[in-house]
């Protein structure tokens, strides 16, 4: 592999594009969520800043920047400050392995619409999700606040429990595609059908597990407002709080992107060979659908109690995920995979 300057520029531009997609996506996912929630709750939602409230995220951002940053007197200052950063970084880098579309050619140069096509992409996603718990745990501990500590401990336990089911949910598409590379998984879906049709159980398990991973309702235990005020970020304000907020929404986007890639065929869609630029459009559309599902759940479901959540994770979800792996493997052996 020859590395020339054009290639480095290509990497830089792609990385920046992903970061911008994540952060801008974060801003407008909040607006999207508030609008959808509002319409589900017989009200209008934000409609004052800009036409149809389109500038609301900007206004929120400005507000958060000018908020006072408070650090509790007995907090562990260093960790208190770096915990939001630790939380947001995994969220930002996790989408690096997702393919956005087929190769396109600009000025005689073939450009791959992905940042990295590593052959262990799924494992990469697993390891990034596994370290994303640190930010939350440390934020809870460093605040020196009982609510925050409880929230941090809960999130640790919850994430460890649901990671197993999440990992096993990945196994289905991996077995079907015979590769851990997301590029290959999408290519395999191009040859057959989107894997949600072959892996309905796996897709459901994936969605449930990621809701727990990103701490969204009905599994928003770590920040359970009703009992723990705001859980691990009780003591945070201003931009530090905004970083946690950002991490949550970027993670939502990331898991939706990965879910769309694994189970909904990623960037695939009609007329792709005519107009390859449709790839990202299809992907974003699928992500929006999955995000809508996440928001819908938040609008309708009460929170599950913590011990029931753990019991569900270990006693229901994990065995089902194992069963799914066994069934998939058996199916591939019987009917021939790939």
């Amino acid at each position, binding site marked *: 592999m020859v590395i020339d300057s054009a290639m480095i520029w290509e990497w830089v531009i792609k990385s920046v594009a992903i970061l911008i997609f994540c952060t801008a996506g974060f801003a407008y996912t909040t607006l999207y969520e508030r609008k959808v929630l509002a319409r589900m709750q017989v009200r209008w939602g934000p409609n004052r800043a800009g036409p149809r409230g389109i500038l609301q995220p900007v206004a929120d951002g400005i507000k958060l920047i000018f908020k006072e940053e408070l650090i509790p007197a007995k907090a*562990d200052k260093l960790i208190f400050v770096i915990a939001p950063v630790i939380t947001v970084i995994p969220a930002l880098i996790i989408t690096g392995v997702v393919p956005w579309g087929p190769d396109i050619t600009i000025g005689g140069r073939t450009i791959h619409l992905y940042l990295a096509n590593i*052959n262990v992409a799924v*494992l990469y996603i*697993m390891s990034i999700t596994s*370290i994303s718990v640190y930010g939350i745990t440390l934020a809870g*501990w460093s605040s020196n606040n009982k609510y925050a500590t409880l929230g941090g401990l809960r999130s*640790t336990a919850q994430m*460890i429990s649901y990671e197993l089911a999440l990992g096993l949910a990945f196994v289905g598409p991996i077995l079907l595609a015979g590769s851990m590379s997301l590029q290959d998984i999408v290519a395999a879906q191009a040859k057959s059908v989107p894997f949600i049709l072959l892996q309905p159980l796996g897709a459901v398990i994936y969605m449930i597990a990621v809701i727990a991973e990103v701490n969204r309702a009905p599994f928003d235990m770590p920040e359970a407002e009703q009992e723990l005020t705001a859980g691990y970020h009780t003591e945070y304000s201003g931009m530090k709080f905004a970083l946690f907020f950002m991490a949550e929404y970027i993670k939502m986007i990331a898991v939706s992107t990965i879910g769309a890639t694994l189970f909904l065929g990623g960037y695939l869609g009609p007329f792709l060979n005519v107009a390859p630029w449709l790839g990202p459009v299809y992907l974003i559309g699928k992500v929006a659908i999955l995000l809508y599902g996440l928001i819908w759940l938040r609008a309708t479901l009460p929170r599950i109690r913590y011990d029931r959540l753990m019991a569900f994770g270990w006693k229901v979800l994990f065995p089902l995920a194992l069963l799914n792996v066994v069934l998939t493997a058996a199916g591939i052996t019987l009917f021939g995979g790939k």
Partner: protein
Amino acid sequence: MPVITLQLVIFITVAALAIASALGMLFSRNTVYSALLLVFNFTTVAFLYFMMGAPFIGLAQITVYAGAIMVLFLFVIMLLGTEQIARIEQLSAQSVAAVLLGLVIITEAVVVFLLRNPTSLVVTSGGDVVSVNEIGGLLYSQYLLPFEITSFILLVAVVGAIILTKQEKPAGKAVEGEVKK
């Protein structure tokens, strides 16, 4: 005299960070900081694996050590509230043993390094030799017995852990009943 390449610079930086974080882990008085530095150390070591063209090992390192084991360590530290270690430790016998063992390991490393050609230790063929398919194949053919034995030991450990925690339950329930009355 080796040529200074980009890779060498990165290697030296990462290696220095790994050593620094390991030392910091040893000398930090705050157990949470120690645990975090250890996590950082694991990550840098994983990065070294990536540079050697073994992404599977690297990612497994992060997932298992940084993502699972160290989280549990932190969990325990926070639950017990033992963040600060006492300044003075009276474990002189242990520290003497530790120094001796450390010396043995360093000597061993130096001897091996000097006696053998260093390059022979490096797995030169990067890429597919350590790919997932390759590892899976080896685990289920050549190393099947060790693999199964390891799984069996892990299973025993899991069952043992369950039995150990299970014994508390009846006592705990009875007490709960009393409180309600």
